[in-house]
């Protein structure tokens, strides 16, 4: 490898396990390096408590490590299928914990602390927005080599509409959330079986823990699938669409269906536990569990819709990529010939290739020539005052659209008035039509239309909008005797709805 720098001549810094022999061998050192790296991941958390004293203000009452771990948990739980956790939302959810640590302090300070912790976990100040730890290992030839370990705890990823979302990195999840580097599927099954058992025994505290673990795994599973699907989108031939991917999709769909069934069963169980429990603490726990499981179900639904999109996506890409006529000349394979060989090179070599590509791949720029006369004018011109309200909007050129409605506003008003029946006096459609015909020959059509609509009244909408009454129509089998219309002579009436919206009570009109 590229370990060519000479071993430092200064004495080796004291190691915790310093003995007569520095290391048992490369294998032991490898394990040591791994532990050192794991330890390094916790350093930013300790660092927060160490540095809080330097902040302007008396912040020592806050347990920064606790806030930091809570923040990492929150981000992990709120990582969505497509994006990540929202920065503001995480701050908002952190604030209650911060506030609980120092209830006497003003609310803006709580928010400032929450923001400070989150920004430090991202390490906003550095160019990489990450952390670096230096550790030393013995190389195979016995030389002592210092190495840089770069890692991130919370990273910022681009989301829809140019927004920035937060995601916890694998390092953070592995070291700080818990050892999750287990097989996703089996771990998920295990967690849910455990959850089931715990709920049936009424041990909700443990059940909640298990449910949260299950959700971590669900998130992880979605994340893996998201990346795999993205890969198929990129290049059809890069993935085995004959067998592997269809199998994978089928497997994932089965998984979703399975989990969905399972979680619905759990949900029913917990709801029962919630409703039957006497203990308010039990009740609260169960209610929280319901939320968690609901969230799991939501994530599975999301996953499923993604899976269903995969097939059409493949066919479209297949048409584009595979059915094109083969080319006679083969061009340069930019990825295979350039990107892939360049990435593993050491920086000082790789830069020569990228520089060459840049120099020849950017095209041309016409050089700007400056005249001193222009320059003087330019420098003396006062800066343009930026209009606070922006540029003036041009007067929109409006064209009146012709009114092509079948019925006029007046007709609608007349029909509505006609159908504004008292709740205890429903009427036959035939009578209404006859009355409408007396005022306006066109009106019966509108009345008939409204009456037919009322045969299937929008009860749900009316209920949601808290309306007080609702027009309805019922067919009692009587034939309509009318010169213009045929069909059933509907009984049209008004149902009064409970104004409070608690129940839709029908008056006994039929």
């Amino acid at each position, binding site marked *: 490898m590229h370990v060519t*720098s000479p071993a430092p001549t200064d004495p080796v810094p004291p190691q915790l396990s310093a003995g007569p022999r520095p290391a048992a061998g490369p294998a032991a050192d490898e394990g040591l390096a791994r532990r050192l790296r794991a330890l390094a991941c916790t350093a930013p958390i300790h660092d927060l408590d160490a540095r809080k004293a330097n902040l302007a203000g008396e912040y020592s009452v806050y347990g920064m490590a606790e806030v930091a771990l809570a923040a990492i948990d929150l981000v992990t739980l709120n990582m969505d299928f497509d994006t990540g956790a929202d920065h503001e939302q995480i701050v908002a959810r952190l604030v209650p914990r911060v506030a609980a640590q120092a209830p006497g302090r003003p609310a803006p300070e709580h928010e400032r602390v929450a923001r400070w912790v989150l920004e430090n976990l991202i390490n906003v100040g550095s160019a990489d927005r990450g952390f670096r730890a230096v550790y030393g290992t013995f190389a195979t030839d016995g030389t002592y080599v210092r190495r840089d370990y770069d890692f991130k705890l919370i990273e910022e990823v681009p989301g829809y509409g140019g927004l920035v979302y937060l995601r916890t990195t694998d390092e953070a999840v592995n070291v700080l959330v818990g050892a999750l580097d287990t097989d996703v599927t089996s771990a998920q099954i295990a967690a849910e079986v455990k959850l089931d058992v715990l709920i049936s025994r009424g041990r909700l505290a443990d059940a909640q823990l298990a449910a949260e673990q299950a959700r971590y795994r669900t998130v992880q599973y979605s994340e893996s699938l998201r990346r795999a699907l993205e890969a198929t989108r990129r290049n059809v031939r*890069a993935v085995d669409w004959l067998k592997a991917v269809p199998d994978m999709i089928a497997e994932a769909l089965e998984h979703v269906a399975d989990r969905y069934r399972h979680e619905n069963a759990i949900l029913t169980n917990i709801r029962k536990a919630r409703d039957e429990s006497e203990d308010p603490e039990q009740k609260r726990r169960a209610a929280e569990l319901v939320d968690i499981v609901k969230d799991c179900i939501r994530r599975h639904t999301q996953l499923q819709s993604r899976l269903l999109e995969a097939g059409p996506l493949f066919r479209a890409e297949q048409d584009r990529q595979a059915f094109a006529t083969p080319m006679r000349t083969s061009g340069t394979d930019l990825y295979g010939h*350039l990107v892939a060989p360049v990435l593993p090179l050491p920086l000082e070599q790789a830069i020569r290739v990228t520089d*060459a*590509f840049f120099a020849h791949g950017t095209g*041309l720029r016409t050089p700007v020539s400056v005249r001193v006369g222009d320059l003087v004018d330019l420098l003396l011109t006062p800066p343009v005052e930026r209009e606070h309200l922006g540029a003036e909007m041009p007067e929109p050129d409006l064209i009146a659209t012709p009114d092509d409605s079948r019925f006029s506003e007046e007709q609608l008003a007349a029909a509505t008035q006609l159908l504004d029946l008292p709740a205890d006096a429903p009427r036959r459609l035939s009578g209404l039509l006859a009355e409408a015909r007396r005022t306006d020959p066109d009106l019966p059509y509108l009345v008939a239309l409204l009456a037919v609509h009322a045969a299937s009244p929008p009860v749900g909408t009316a209920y949601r909008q808290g309306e007080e009454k609702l027009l309805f129509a019922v067919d009692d089998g009587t034939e309509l005797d009318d010169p213009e219309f045929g069909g059933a002579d509907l009984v049209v009436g008004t149902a009064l709805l409970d104004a409070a919206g608690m129940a839709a009570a029908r008056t006994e009109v039929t």
Partner: protein
Amino acid sequence: MTEHVDPSEPETAAPASAAVTPADTADAARLVAFGLQPKLQPARDQEYADLLRRYREDPPFARLVDAVATGLGLIVLEVSPRAGMAVTAAEDSVFAVRMGDYARRTAADSGDRFLHGLAHLAVAALAFPRPEDLADDGYIGRVTVNGVDAFVRQACRRLEERAEHQGENTDPVSDAPGLEAAWRIWARRTATGATKDARRLAGSTTGIVGKAVAFLTDSGFLQRTGDDSGGTYRTTARYQLQVRDMAASAAMTELLDLGVVPVTDGTATLLPAEDTDDLELVADAGLPFHS
């Protein structure tokens, strides 16, 4: 080439052969001038289209145009109705783009310099993912800013996994930044970052890719088609020519000078490896690109 044209002053060039008049030279220079406005579409300008036709139908005029371009320090890539007068800057020409002017920080920081170069390479690689795409004149590539970043990150991740698999310690040696593996520089730079004024963080990888595509758009190489995924772009004929005829070969030469010989048989290398175990849903399994 039989005519001799003084390229630095094309307008006053003395006719070396009887066929060339000052008016012809002026027309030739005019066509080159059109070529220097890369965003100008031949279809939108009658005079441009007329001159292009003359170039194709009148060989002495074509030679005159080539000579004017060469004298100005330009290389003619193609002259056609679709690409227009596609010229690019020769090395050391006044028209050439220099990295130091492109991004100031690159002068001091070799890591940044590499990131900006790699961003351009990655945009091209994603715009023309298969060799056929680069060779096919009718192909229009589509890239998004976030897509380019994700593509490079996945490639980096593969290298990381491979190194891990082989039990290598890829953590770079301290105080020897030049020896750090190139992929690590991209991998450890943040993908994006919140800024106070809601703009893209310039130093993040999406910021760097965003700068690259914006620059290429100004060069008439890309056209912006939307705002999704950090900005979506499609390629123009000029970009394909530039990458195919200039950039790819220059970078390849440099790579060969380093003693790295990528062995391929002319088919796409974005194919799965022999073991398709890669499709197993290991966390972080991403683009199944193989080198």
